[in-house]
C-alpha cells in the first residue's frame, strides 16, 4: 500500500472528473474526517485516515481490500473505474441518465443502453461524456459514456445505442471474484 504518485493521481482525477467534474474536491476535503487515496495491488482505495492506520497492522500480501475500491491501474498505466466507486460517483454526478424499467435489466446484464430504454437524460450532455445511470426510481445502477449528445438522442431511432455501458451493479455478481 502506498500513496499515489503525482502522475497516477492525475490519471485518476482525469477519469473521475469525467463523471463528477470538480466535485472531486468534495471527496478530498470532507468535513467528517480525513480521507485519502491509496494504491494497493494496482487498485486505488479511498480510505479514511482512521481505517488506514488500522490497516497498517496487516501485512501486504495478506491485505485483500480496504476502504472503497475506486478502480485499478492497468499495466499500461490507464485507470479503470470499478463499480464499487458508484457510491461516491452517484451523489456528485454531473450528468445523469435514467433508464426505463424495461431497459433496466438489459443494462444490468452488461449491455449498452438503447434509445428505447432511455427514460431521461440530463440536458447539455456532450458526446462521450461520462454519465451515471439511474433507474426511474432514482436508484444508481451504474455508469457509462454518452454515445450521443442530448440533442442527437431525440433524433436517433429506438435501437441506436445512446449510452455505452461501462459498469453496472450486476458486476457484483458477474465479477464477484475480481471485485474487491
Amino acid at each position: 500500500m502506498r500513496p499515489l504518485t503525482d502522475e497516477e493521481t492525475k490519471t485518476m482525477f482525469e477519469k473521475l472528473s469525467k463523471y463528477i467534474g470538480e466535485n472531486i474536491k468534495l471527496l478530498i476535503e470532507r468535513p467528517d474526517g480525513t480521507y485519502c487515496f491509496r494504491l494497493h495491488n494496482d487498485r486505488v482505495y479511498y480510505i479514511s485516515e482512521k481505517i488506514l492506520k488500522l490497516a497498517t497492522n496487516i501485512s501486504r500480501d495478506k491485505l485483500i481490500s480496504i476502504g472503497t475500491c475506486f478502480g485499478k491501474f492497468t499495466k499500461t498505466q490507464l485507470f479503470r473505474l470499478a463499480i464499487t466507486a458508484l457510491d461516491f460517483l452517484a451523489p456528485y454526478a454531473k450528468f445523469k441518465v435514467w433508464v426505463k424499467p424495461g431497459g433496466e435489466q438489459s443494462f444490468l446484464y452488461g449491455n449498452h443502453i438503447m434509445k428505447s430504454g432511455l427514460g431521461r437524460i440530463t440536458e447539455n450532455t456532450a458526446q462521450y461524456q461520462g454519465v451515471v445511470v439511474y433507474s426511474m426510481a432514482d436508484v444508481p445502477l451504474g455508469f457509462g459514456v454518452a454515445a450521443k449528445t442530448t440533442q442527437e438522442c431525440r433524433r436517433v431511432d429506438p435501437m441506436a445505442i445512446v449510452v455505452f455501458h461501462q459498469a453496472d451493479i450486476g458486476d457484483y455478481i458477474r465479477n464477484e471474484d475480481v471485485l474487491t
Partner: protein
Amino acid sequence: MAACSIEDVLAKAEKDEAERLKSITVQKELDLEFDTGNLLAFDKNRVDVRDFKSTSKEEFLRSLARDNTQLFINEVWKRPTERIEDVIVVKLPEATTPLPREKPPPKPKAPTKWEEFAKLKGIQKKKKTNLVWDEVHKEWKRRWGYQRAKDDTKEWLIEVPVNADPNEDQFAKRNNAKKERVAKNEFNRLKNIARAQKLPTPGGGLVPTAQQSKAELTQAINVAKASTASAGKFQESLPKEKAPRNTGKKRKFQPLIGDFTDERQKQLDILKVLGSKKPRIDMTKAVNKQMREDDRESASNARKGPGKKGRKGNMPGKGRGGFKGKGGFSGKEGFSGKGGFSGKGGFSGKGKGRGRGKPPKGQQQNPRSKPGKR
C-alpha cells in the same frame, strides 16, 4: 715434552686438513635413491638420535647434508659430459618423480553460445576430413580457410542471377558478404569472451543484424542520447518523446502515513491544473446550445402558426420513436418521463391526447416494451 707437543701439533694440523678436504667417497648403510632429472636425492638411512643429541645439532645436520650432496654430485657426474664454451655441462635425464603443479589446473573453457545451444538441442560435432578434392585444380585442398577448395571469392566469372540488378557488381557483393560474415563472427567471438568473463556486454549499440526491432532501436537511441560529455543532461528531446523506461532509476514514494494536509494540498493543486487545462469555449457544448435554441424556435413557431392541428402534423415523424411527442423535450431534463409511466405500456400519457392519430402504433409498441419488463 716439546717433541710430544710437536707431534700433537702435527697430528692436529693433519686432522684439521683432513676435515677440510673431506673425501669424495661417503659410506652409507643404504644407498641413496636419486632422481637426477629433478636434482633430487632421497636418504633413507636412519638418523641416530643419540648421535644427533650428543653432537651439536647444527654440526650434525651440516655434515649429513654435505655427505648427501657429495653423493648426489657423484651421481650427476656419472652422466655423460660435454664441453660447451669452456664449461663442462651434464645433460640431465628425464625426471622420474612426478611433482604436483604449482598453479591450480585451468578451469574448463566456458561454452560459447553455440555450444550451449548445441548441447541443449543435442547437436553433435561431425568430424570431417580437412582435405577435399578440388575438381578445378585437380588437387587436394583444405576444406576452408586460405587456399580452400571451391573458393567462391576467387572465381573469375560469376553468372548474374535472373532477378538481380544487372549493374550490380557480383564480385564486390560476394566480397562484402564475406567481410560481413567475418565481422559478425568476430563480434560474436568477443561477446562470447565477455559472457564467459561475466563482463557487461556492450549494450545499446546496434548489432549487425538484418532487421532491428523497435525495442532495440529505442534502446540504441537512449544509449546514444546519454553518451554525451554531460551524460545527456542537456540533450534536447523531441516534442512528444517519451522518457525512457526501465533505466534502473528507483521510484520514490511518499510515506504511507505522512502529512495528510500536505497530501490533500497536493491533490488540490493537481485538480487546479486539470481545471485550468479545459478550453474556454467548449465547441460541442456551444453547438448543442445552438441546436437547442433552433429546436425551441421551431417549436414556438409551430405553436404560433397552425395551432393545435399543426402539432398533430408534426407528430408522425417523431412519434415512432417510442418517446412521447415533442412537447416532452421542453422540460429541463431532456425527456420528461413521469407522465409516460403512469400508463401500463411506457407510452407517454401526454402523447395519448395529442397523438390520437396513431393509436395503432402505440399499441404496437406495447408488446416491444413488455419483454423488457420481465
